[in-house]
């Protein structure tokens, strides 16, 4: 029996009337419509069956049936299956049961829709503001369809985010919104006892750009890949591919095999450059700048290669719905192979230097430890999870593009610390080189574009995941009328991983904060992509300063 049928039968047998409808447009996708009262039991049952929580997707369908909808998505990694449970509540009392007490990773997803859609989740352990700026007025929910994408309401006054209460006997050290160890704005309040970290609160989402809202109100299907690419500066192709795949699945469009191979090559080129970039940054964070310089020197070759293949160093602009825009010429391929050879040689030297360096061992071994069980519980993804012995990789578990034909190893280490993350990343660079060589060998001839006629049936749900260098990216698309999506949800890998950071920090030394945070390769811009209507970062940073002032005042009174 197919996995989808199996799961849907199990749910129907167990919950009977609570399961309203099941639908499986593809073998690897299962959409289950449920009554909202049963969400807790059903999601717990799915986790018990071995699922991993991905993300929650809230959407507004007030105009159609007066409801707000919520979808929780799960992945069965061993069976290549995504399960999405859909439920709805009337817009005048959008109350759902919170699944966060059992599935901690759902915490942010639920908080997101408290902010953006005005939903309520009973039993949520931390129902605080997550996404909207502190001075966003109450009662305006930007993701609702009645709110225009360029709304700029007057700011609420006298509001500030209340940090979690510091544990007894600890001092609060504010890190951010701007800090040398953060590459993007985010605020961490770290509670320390002496040098030991005892807890941490996070206030981020300071780089909202309203991308999701914009793409569901203004632009059309085939323009979104270019905007999706700009969600993240490092893994642009990943977002464009994931979005394009989701729309292609919804439209039932089958792209040419050659296009799939070129997508695979682009994704792996991106992985190569991203791993080298991270290696450099990690070296820099622990004060080993030679690694930083050398890793980035090697990376430069890949950037130039990408420039010649696609026309740009980053934001390749290659991937659109229906295929890719440029074909690989024989000269490109020859150059690609030459660069790979060179990079491989030089990577071996760097690898040797890193593995033999005692300073790196001392700074990364036993740092940022969490157990495999915790990593599974918090559904961490990517190298962070693989360094904790969790054997997941979307390329292998849910093959997309041309990965079904590729042979590669998924490096998994079980020392559960930052060192293992470094190893995963290094090994994956060599795997990426392996994959590109296979793809070049096996690439069939053919067209690179398939006509996308933009006549997509409205209200089709579709989900697609792609393994970004730093973890798994999930895109959820609900197709709409007017040639654009009704709802588009992006979940970047930092979204789940950042939620696990407070746990990684626990009982570590404060000086290790930069490398622990750096080890997840945080990308706040991807995480913050959401639908807020204006860039209000300037405003937020002011609040941050007030917070700092308040904190310092508190500290002073403490001393006096």
């Amino acid at each position, binding site marked *: 029996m197919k996995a989808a049928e199996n799961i849907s039968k199990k749910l129907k047998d167990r919950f009977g009337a609570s399961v309203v409808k099941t639908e499986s447009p593809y073998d690897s996708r299962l959409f289950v419509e449920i009554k909202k009262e049963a969400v807790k039991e059903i999601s717990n049952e799915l986790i018990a069956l071995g699922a991993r929580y991905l993300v929650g997707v809230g959407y507004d369908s007030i105009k159609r049936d007066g409801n707000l909808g919520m979808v929780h998505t799960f992945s069965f990694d061993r069976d290549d299956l995504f399960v999405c449970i859909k439920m709805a509540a009337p817009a005048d009392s959008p109350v759902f049961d919170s699944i966060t007490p059992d599935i901690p990773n759902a915490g942010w997803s639920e908080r997101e829709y408290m902010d953006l859609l005005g939903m309520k989740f009973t039993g949520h352990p931390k129902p605080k503001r997550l996404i909207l700026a502190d001075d966003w007025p109450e009662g305006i929910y930007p993701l609702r369809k009645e709110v225009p994408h360029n709304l700029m309401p007057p700011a609420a006054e006298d509001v500030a985010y209340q940090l979690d209460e510091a544990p007894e006997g600890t001092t609060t050290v504010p890190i951010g919104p701007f800090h040398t160890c953060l590459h993007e704005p985010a605020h961490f309040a770290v509670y320390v006892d002496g040098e030991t970290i005892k807890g941490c609160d996070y206030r981020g989402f300071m780089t909202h750009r309203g991308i999701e809202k914009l793409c569901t109100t*203004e*632009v059309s299907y085939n323009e979104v890949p270019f905007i999706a690419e700009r969600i993240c500066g490092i893994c642009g192709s990943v977002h464009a591919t994931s979005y394009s795949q989701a729309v292609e699945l919804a439209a039932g469009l089958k792209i040419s095999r050659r296009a799939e191979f070129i997508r695979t090559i682009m994704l792996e080129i991106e992985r190569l450059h991203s791993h080298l970039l991270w290696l450099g940054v990690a070296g820099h964070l622990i004060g080993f700048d030679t690694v930083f310089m050398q890793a980035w020197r090697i990376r430069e070759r890949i950037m130039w290669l990408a420039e010649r*293949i*696609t*026309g740009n160093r980053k*934001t390749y602009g290659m991937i659109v719905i229906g295929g890719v*825009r440029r074909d690989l010429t024989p000269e490109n391929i020859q150059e690609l192979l030459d660069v790979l050879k060179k990079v491989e040689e030089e990577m071996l030297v760097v690898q040797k230097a890193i593995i033999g360096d005692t300073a790196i061992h001392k700074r990364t071994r036993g740092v940022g430890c969490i157990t495999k069980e915790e990593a599974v519980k918090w559904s961490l993804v990517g190298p962070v999870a693989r360094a904790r012995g969790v054997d997941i990789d979307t390329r292998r578990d849910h093959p997309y593009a041309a990965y079904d034909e590729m042979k590669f190893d998924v490096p998994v280490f079980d020392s559960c610390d930052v060192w293992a993350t470094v190893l995963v990343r290094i090994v994956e660079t060599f795997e990426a080189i392996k994959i590109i060589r296979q793809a070049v060998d096996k690439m069939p001839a053919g067209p690179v574009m398939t006509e996308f006629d933009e006549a997509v049936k409205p209200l089709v749900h579709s989900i697609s995941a792609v393994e970004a260098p730093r973890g798994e990216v999930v895109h959820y698309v609900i197709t709409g009328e007017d040639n654009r999506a009704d709802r588009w949800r992006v979940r970047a890998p930092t979204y789940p991983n950042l939620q696990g950071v407070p746990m990684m920090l626990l009982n570590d030394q404060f000086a290790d904060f930069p490398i622990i945070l750096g080890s997840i390769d945080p990308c706040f811009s991807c995480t913050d992509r959401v639908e807020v209507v204006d860039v209000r970062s300037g405003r937020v940073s002011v609040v941050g300063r007030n917070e700092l002032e308040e904190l310092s005042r508190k500290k002073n009174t403490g001393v006096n």
Partner: protein
Amino acid sequence: MVLKPGVVTLKYPFEPHPAPETFRGAPHWDHHKCVGCGACSNHCSSRCILVRDMCQELRVMLYDGSRCTYCGRCADVCPEKAITISTGFEYATGDKNDITERVELFMLTCQRCGRCYDMEHTNAIDRLDLRGYRYDNLEARALIRKTSDQFDQKLFDETDKFARPTKIGE
């Protein structure tokens, strides 16, 4: 690891460092070839190609380079190959007009009806309008969803004073 590669820093900007042939730089319009179909404007994801009919016969296409992401999509979709992508990349400037390109096209009128697309609401040009592709105020470059066939002073004033909504439904 360090000694073998030696110094790799380029002397740029003191020595020129040209971009490869395939580089995607700023687009340029060939006004001899352009037929004013608006396909580039239709596909521009950053909405930086503006189309405005100044009057029945005159169509202005304005390329606003300050918002361009150099994706090169406009050149892909141009049916007349009127758009070429240059390899230039040194576009930093203090004056916006340095990177703005303006094409004024003399449009023919339909001999039968004067303005064909005025009569129906299903053709591509009208759909452009519905999706907010046109700009009515080239100076303010604010995104407005309305347009007129003839130059309309009232609409122009309206768009001239365009401000972002601060209340829902405004």
